[in-house]
């Protein structure tokens, strides 16, 4: 992020560096790990929990306590989504059957004198509780983040071809060891990388327990760990011997750094105090060459002192008298691969959280509760509908009315609800009914 901002300029004026300095001073580049941000996230979790706890009893009450026997005023045609039909041959049994055909759960009641009958239909009655699932998902997601941060393990390893590296610190019981058997990064004709893949083996106690070629989108999963292909770069294959010919080092030296746009790495020669600063450069005649500088600590200055400096072509060897008493042979170039190795106990929680979240959202928005009352009195059916905000209640009203008409009811004086949707639902389509006390 800092790099992106640092190059910003307006009308030739470089604004990037001072902005980077300002943002850095404000901690914006690390904002998501700052105590203030963590505190805000914690406040968010507490707020969601408190709101959910506060809302749940009222939510349950509105779902569970249903008044079937509504007074005549409840069916007043001036209210939204109210209409009347002449019952015709339809009795309460037939109305109940019609409601069931619209997938309503039906409850019924009759006045003590038998003059009034109520038929009540409720669809997706308890799915309104899905909103709790959504909020649980949010809390679980943030909780998963906390678990990942507190108990998760992550390491990034850069390993040359043929080399190995421990996953956990050396000495950890049951530790895993990764070994890069091969690495390939084929290029396309335009020079871009078509793929990069590592032939990876995993060992425990000297025994190979897994082997797989990993790619960016194909990690290796093993015993709770995931091994992700992450990055790669060039390496210089060196063979180093002391003056007596004893082998000190053979293998790739990882060039993960960069100097003047060229790959650079550093190796402390085992068993010596000499360090090698290594850069792969392009040779004048084509191909690559190794520029190597030998350095040792200089107690007098507190820095380092250059012992020798030179360049080697592939296959070329520097004699010990040229390079501080060691023979350095540049075998050629190879590659290193960078892997992210993770063990994240928060991951199962986050998938569960996502499941809760999406199921809750889908149920809330696509299966909203809707209710219909029919009051049958003196050969008239008075209809009233209520629904959540997500319900196109005008459409539901029309469908119910048309079903009753199809089953024998007769139109009353009032017109049927207009076409579905807001377009024609003049008397209202449920606005303000979601918090009904009924």
């Amino acid at each position, binding site marked *: 992020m800092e790099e992106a901002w640092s190059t910003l300029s307006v009308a030739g004026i470089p604004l990037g560096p001072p902005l980077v300095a300002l943002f850095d001073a404000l901690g914006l580049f690390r904002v998501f790990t700052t105590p203030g941000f963590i505190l805000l996230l914690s406040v968010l979790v507490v707020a969601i929990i408190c709101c959910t706890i506060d809302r749940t009893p009222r939510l349950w009450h509105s779902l569970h306590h249903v008044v079937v026997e509504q007074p005549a005023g409840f069916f007043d045609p001036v209210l939204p989504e109210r209409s009347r039909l002449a019952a015709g041959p339809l009795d309460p049994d037939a109305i109940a059957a019609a409601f069931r055909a619209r997938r309503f759960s039906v409850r019924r009641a009759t006045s003590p004198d038998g003059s009034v009958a109520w038929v009540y239909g409720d669809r997706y009655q308890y799915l309104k509780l899905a909103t709790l699932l959504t909020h649980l998902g949010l809390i679980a997601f943030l909780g998963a983040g906390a678990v990942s941060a507190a108990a998760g393990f992550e390491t990034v390893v850069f390993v040359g071809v043929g080399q190995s590296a421990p996953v956990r610190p050396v000495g950890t019981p049951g530790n895993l060891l990764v070994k890069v058997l091969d690495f390939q990064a084929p290029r396309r004709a335009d020079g871009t990388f078509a793929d990069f893949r590592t032939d990876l083996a995993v060992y425990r106690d000297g025994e190979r327990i897994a082997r797989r070629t990993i*790619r960016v989108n194909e990690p290796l999963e093993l015993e709770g760990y995931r091994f*992700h292909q992450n990055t790669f770069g060039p390496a210089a294959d060196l063979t180093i011997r002391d003056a007596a010919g004893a082998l000190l080092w053979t293998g790739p030296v990882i060039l993960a750094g960069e100097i003047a746009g060229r790959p650079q790495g550093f190796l402390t020669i085992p068993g010596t105090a000499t360090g090698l600063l290594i850069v792969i450069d392009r040779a004048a005649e084509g191909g690559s060459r190794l520029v190597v500088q030998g350095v040792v600590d200089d107690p007098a200055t507190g820095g380092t002192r250059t012992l020798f400096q030179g360049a080697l072509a592939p296959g070329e060897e520097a004699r010990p008298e040229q390079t501080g008493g060691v023979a350095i042979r540049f075998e050629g170039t190879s590659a290193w691969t960078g892997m*992210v190795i993770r063990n994240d106990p928060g991951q199962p929680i986050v998938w569960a959280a996502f499941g809760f*979240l999406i199921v809750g959202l889908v149920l809330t928005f696509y299966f909203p509760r809707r209710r219909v009352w029919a009051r049958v009195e003196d050969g008239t059916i008075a209809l009233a509908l209520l629904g959540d*905000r997500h319900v196109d209640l005008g459409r539901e009203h029309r469908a119910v009315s048309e079903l009753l008409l199809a089953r024998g009811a007769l139109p009353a004086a009032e017109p049927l609800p207009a076409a579905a*949707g807001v377009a024609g639902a003049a008397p209202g389509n449920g606005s303000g009914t979601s918090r009904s006390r009924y």
Partner: protein
Amino acid sequence: MGLGPLSLYLTTIGAIALAVAFLLAVARTTLLALERPAVLVSAAGPAVTAPSAAPGRTAWAIAHAFTWVAAITLGAGLVARGVLVGRGPWGNMYEFSVAFAFGIVAGWLFLRRRYPIDPIAFLPLGVALFLVGYAATLPATIGPLVPALDNAPLLTIHVAMAMIAYGIFATSFGAAVGYLIQGPEDRFSWLPSHRVLDEAAWRAVVIGFPVFATMIILGSWWASIAWGRYWGWDPKETSALVTWLIYAVYLHARNQRGWAGRPSALILVIGFGAVLFTYFGNLFFSGLHSYSGL
């Protein structure tokens, strides 16, 4: 003709149709806004005010037809390109800009079937036209994907979800702008009533919000596969989450006294601003979503 040129031709036709539809929609809304009641003076007596026929009706009918042409040709162009590349055709900014425009047009056509919101058509169509215009400035060449994107099923579904959600949110934006102009007192007869605009915007968000959530979840899943973590506060991830939260605030606020009406409409305008920021953000910020092809 190969699928590549076919896709390009179809997209070009779609862009032209979209431009025509947009201009006609603007013309129609302008005519509606400028309409004055016709005054008829009869020989026998006083002036009589009579309602005129809805002005620009023909213009709108043509605009609507061109909108359909745009949706069909842009969609067909995407299908052709998708068949050619063997994945969802949204692997760079050119492809996704066209897909985003298609999503807007399709979302608009879907919602206008249920809500009489034609006078605000120029708003979502204008955004879609801007996007195809922007796409026209980008290289349309078909190139291979970087290895990190080389997951055709997840790329197709994850970005398709973004296309649907972004597209439908454009209509909620248009309805919200209409609401802010109209006001709860229904100031202008040429605009849909505030209630219609409010309902259309709400419906759009109700459709888009779970889809947007699914997009984020699928992205998180993909990130856990490709990058080793399900969440990394990458600029695009963060921006998408903020956008989602803005729409979540809207869903909660709209039913709260004091927040219904103008404040909710304003949240939707801010929300769509966040959508555009999420969309274009990778041009300005580095991060793991820097696959624009620019």
